[in-house]
């Protein structure tokens, strides 16, 4: 759906995107994680066609961004980081304005406004002026406007900035619902790991303009997964039994099993051996799936400090 090849972008002498290569399949939510200033918004701005680039090729739905921009823009939409809405207008007037500028009119426009306000749960507030909205409602309206043209690709640039936990969860659920029901391909940028973990199918980690990791969320989170099994006492004979399992390391009274392709078989075998030798298991500890730890490992810095 989205193909980025050798993308470079600089502001003056500062290189902000350095040889980005990324492939995003249709219908998935890609969580783009990175600290402020990592290049996430720049990348999204280039993809939506409002910012130029120094080098590289971009194909959206098979269309070359350089030659088919106007066509691409009709199937894409962006939910900007800022609240790109008019506070002095009502929610309906905002939706009508942005829908009208996208060429929607009459019953089509009305139907889209109805759908978008239903998704964003704003039906009861359509005639209310936006400056009277809460932060969460403004964010939902910002998102609803992004859905007006029924986009096949939706870029969400930190869409939950400044909202409370309840509103954030609502917005994340809303995004997952749209993806599930409409099959919309999404790029979701954030520096909140919890959001990325919650909403994404794929994860791309970007730092200082470099794409340092990307792939399916599960694979990324589980690649460093370990289970520690603490037992009462391990005999010499038992130690020899475990030597055959490459992913297992035994130290003192603890067996550590690293995740690999035989993980489940290995785990069953270890427990079978322990059972057959009547070894008492004191504790089982699985290493938590932790994106922050992964980010720390990759960049040697904490996301919040970056």
């Amino acid at each position, binding site marked *: 759906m989205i193909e980025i090849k050798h993308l470079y972008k600089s*502001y003056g002498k500062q290189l902000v995107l350095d040889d980005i290569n990324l492939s995003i399949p249709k219908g998935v939510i890609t969580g783009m994680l990175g600290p402020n200033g990592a290049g996430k918004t720049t990348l999204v*701005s280039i993809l*939506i*066609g*409002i*910012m*130029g680039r120094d080098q590289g090729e971009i194909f959206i739905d098979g269309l070359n961004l350089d030659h088919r*921009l*106007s066509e691409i*823009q*009709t199937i*894409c*939409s*962006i939910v*900007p*980081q*800022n*609240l*790109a*809405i*008019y506070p*002095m*207008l009502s929610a309906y*007037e905002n939706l*009508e*304005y*942005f829908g*009208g*500028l*996208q*060429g929607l*009119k009459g019953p089509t426009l009305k139907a889209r406004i109805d759908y978008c306000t239903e998704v964003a749960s704003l039906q009861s507030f359509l005639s209310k*002026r936006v400056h009277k909205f809460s932060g969460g409602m403004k964010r939902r309206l910002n998102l609803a*406007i992004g859905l007006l*043209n029924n986009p096949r690709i939706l870029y969400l640039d930190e869409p939950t900035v400044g909202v409370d936990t309840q509103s954030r969860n609502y917005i994340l659920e809303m995004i997952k619902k749209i993806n599930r029901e409409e099959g919309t391909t999404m790029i979701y940028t954030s520096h909140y790991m919890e959001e990325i973990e919650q909403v994404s199918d794929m994860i791309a980690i970007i730092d200082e303009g470099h794409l340092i990791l990307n792939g399916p969320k599960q694979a990324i989170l589980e690649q460093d997964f370990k289970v520690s099994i603490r037992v009462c006492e391990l005999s010499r004979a038992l130690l020899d039994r475990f030597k055959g399992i490459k992913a297992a390391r035994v130290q003192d009274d603890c067996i550590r099993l690293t995740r690999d392709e035989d993980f489940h078989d290995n785990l069953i075998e270890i427990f079978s051996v322990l059972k057959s030798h009547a070894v008492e298991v004191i504790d089982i500890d699985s290493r938590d799936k932790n994106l922050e730890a992964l980010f720390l490992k990759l960049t040697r810095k904490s996301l919040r400090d970056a």
Partner: protein
Amino acid sequence: MTKIFYILKKEFLVMGRDVHALAVLFIMPVAFILIMSLAMRDLFETHTVNQIKILVVNQDKSDLSRAFVQTLEKLGAFSLHHMDDESGFDLIRHNMFQDDFKFALVIEKGFSLAGRQMILLVKPSVNRQTYTILKNTLAANLAKTRIAYQLKGQEEMLGYAGIDIDKLMQPADTLIETRYVSKGKLKFKVPTSVQQSVPAWLVFSMFFVVIPLSNTFIAEKNYGTLMRLQSMNISTGFLLAGKLLPFFIVNLIQVVLMILVGVFLVPLLGGDALTMGDSYGGLLLITTAVSFCSISFALLVASIAKTTEHATTIGGVFNIILGALGGIMIPKFVMPDFMQTLSVLSPMSWGLEGFLDIFLRNGNVLDVMKESLLLSFIGLVMFSVTAFIIRKKLSL
């Protein structure tokens, strides 16, 4: 067309709900027109002369001195207040300051004889022009009174010589007819304060679109709305043109409103009524040119400024300077020559001249062509610079 409809609707809704913008665009110029039309009425008044108050002490008490005082009274330009003929200098001075007389005329004893004739006491704060006019008037009328006095009793003899003494002594101002010239047809209009105030404050208010326009535009720029619109395949040119049309309509409404105020409201408050020329084509042309220039100026300010406060300060200060320089606040004809020359630097001056051509000088399309072209040219330059800046900022 549909997109233009939604742009117009949005701009008018946003503006209509902005009380401050409405006040700046409509209430402020109406107030200025009313205040300035009434306040400057005397400055333009040519029929009712504002009389100069003079204290008169006639110590001579001769027929000649009495005849001279009567001649002055007949002129109608002076309001003469007689003091006791024996009043001394200290009392005269006291009265001058107590009753706010700028002048006192003391006709000394022996006035009817040759030699020293009269003393004019003048306050230092007196305007030099007023003093000169008064002194020359006194001298001219003194000479005339003396001649009349000397010719007294010789009417019959002069009649034989074909000289009509009454005609000879006719007030000089009845011999002068005043005609105002206009650029176009031979019609003329008497310039009044409302003829100056309406076009002046109209041009000023048209340039004040800088406040609401820059406020909206900077909010759109800073809060990502322009970015969102760009992502909807809407070009920078269309975005800027989307500002031109609604604010042009606002400017048209301003023109109609200010004209109505000048024609109907000012007379109700005791001022003169605005009279318009008959060239509606010329009026539309100069309105369009001023509007394009003022909106381009507003867009340029909005594109340069980072915050709305910044834009309001830049726009407001520039407007006041351009207004002061361009003859908006002070009519150009009361400015010294070098200031009148400097006023051509202000586009507001070109706009004002254009409107004066229509309202006062009965000009037509051709008469306002020069001003309109100048305004359009400078407007085009500012619009192009704005487009360049916006494109550059959005594509960074």
